[in-house]
């Protein structure tokens, strides 16, 4: 087999091997990747940053462990920003495995907020984040579109109790918070089509400010809503998460992940180029032989 044919028909196990070597090497290395912030991520940060203390942000954890690598860092950076600024947070989980993801995020971020830290030159004192006072986790309910519509009437309609069984009317934080009218921002962090329901049934009907955190493959699909003003911003994939971490000055898993993702993308590009070089060289050779 000629070199160019080999370039085209390389065994896929070589592709896997090179990719794993590059991923492991990148993960073990300590170089950092410069992150450029896109306007659609900046707008979410600006919105949260502009909210006064005591405002309410609803964070919809609509993803499963499959999307953990891309979406969990967004949740961590966003919620930590809210809690450091004493912004109250309502959590919902309309994806089946969402509650597990949410409980884990709450546990880890509560721990992080308990320590003193400096972000963007501002020192924040560590404090205890209290369930029912600083946040309220509503839990999972089936039929996400119905739940989104129901919360537009009253949060206690689809959720008579919070995740831990406390009647919603007895949760101190929820006093005076009836429906989306009292929520300053809704952020849907999603790995599936629940996002469509948040846009159509939630933002479309009730008109609240909506921001999205999406997996990389979903991002392109939601740009029209950004142009139409139905959403205020998008965090797309690991890159979006890394940009948000950079804005909040809270580097975490997304920044580390970018170190792996970029060389991995380069390997994929290299293989695509290699395959095309082989393809054109082979085509040119066949043409030449045909002429001869």
């Amino acid at each position, binding site marked *: 087999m000629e070199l160019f044919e080999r370039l085209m028909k390389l065994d896929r196990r070589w592709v896997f091997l090179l990719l794993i070597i590059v991923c492991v090497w990148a993960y073990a290395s300590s170089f950092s990747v410069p992150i450029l912030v896109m306007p659609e991520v900046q707008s979410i940060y600006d919105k949260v940053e502009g909210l006064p203390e005591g405002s309410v942000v609803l964070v919809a954890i609509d993803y499963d462990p499959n999307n953990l690598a891309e979406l969990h860092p967004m949740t961590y950076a966003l919620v930590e920003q809210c809690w450091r600024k004493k912004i109250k947070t309502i959590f919902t989980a309309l994806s089946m495995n969402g509650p597990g993801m949410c409980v884990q995020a709450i546990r880890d971020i509560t721990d992080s907020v308990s320590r003193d830290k400096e972000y963007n030159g501002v020192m924040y004192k560590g404090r205890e984040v209290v369930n029912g006072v600083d946040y309220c986790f509503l839990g999972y309910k089936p039929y996400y579109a119905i739940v989104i519509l129901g919360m537009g009437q009253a949060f206690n309609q689809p959720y008579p109790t919070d995740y831990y*069984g406390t009647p919603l009317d007895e949760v101190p934080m929820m006093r005076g918070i009836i429906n989306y009218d009292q929520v300053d921002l809704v952020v849907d962090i999603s790995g599936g089509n629940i996002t469509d329901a948040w846009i159509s049934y939630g933002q479309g009907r009730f008109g609240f400010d909506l921001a999205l955190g999406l997996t990389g493959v979903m991002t*392109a699909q939601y740009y029209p809503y950004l142009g139409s003003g139905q959403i205020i911003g998008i965090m797309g994939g690991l890159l979006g998460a890394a940009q948000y971490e950079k804005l909040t000055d809270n580097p975490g898993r997304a920044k580390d992940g970018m170190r792996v993702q970029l060389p991995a993308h380069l390997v994929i590009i290299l293989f695509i180029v290699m*395959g*095309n070089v082989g393809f054109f060289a082979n085509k040119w050779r066949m043409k030449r032989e045909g002429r001869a």
Partner: protein
Amino acid sequence: MRRQIPFGLVFIFGIFMVFQFFVPHEKSEWVYEFLLDWIIVIGIFALALGIWSLFKVSVEKIKQGKEGGNYSYITLVGLYMMMAFGFTQQTGDGWGLYFLWIMLCSACIVSLMRLRASTDSGKKRMWALASGGLLVAAVLVAIFDDAWAFFLYTPEGLENSMFEIFFDHIMMPILATMFSLLAFYIASAAYRAFRARNVLASLLLLAALLVMSRFNPFIPGAEYVANASNWLMNVPNLAAQRAIVIGIGLGIVGTALKIILGIERGYMGRG
């Protein structure tokens, strides 16, 4: 009548929901909330039906001796264990006979599956006896062991550490691993499929390379690549996606009208 009544109900409720959207009256809102509650109630019935269906399909796989049929035991035992963890919680410091109870119930489920899957009457009797014995033992452990208790109507079970351990250390790594394997398949598929065979394929290839390389500082001319990629996302992609979204929206309206007017009857299980 069996067909006319559902069509009538779909027509009445469909038309009502359309008009309700434009009537912000208190009574209209009350009916709307009432209907939303009903949908959730019906959904919970569907959940029970789903569990029964999963049990039947799993037993059928074992009965037919299909390849990988033995995984059905893991499916149902896993389902049972997560449910059991969610409805129970320790009442003191120790776990007592809790894990024995879990094992007995798991064994009982396996026996029940074998019982349903067996065709031989002798074996059926044996599995029936085994299931009965295991069930009695599990019930006795549940009655006499005070170290843990059932919480069927209150959410204490959600704080069961076993529930958390199984989710954090089994479920999450499994799902994350499955998804991460995609990276390798995507790399291999991109290498094989992305060939500039004609003008359209070349455009697709170029767009993919630009978007993949955006914000990649290791690529020469990274700034220009980033700008070109942003333009691709914000102009041609936006235009195409808008057309798709509008098309889908009109399609949804058309399908909804067909269902309300009884033209589309697929949901009845017949054409």
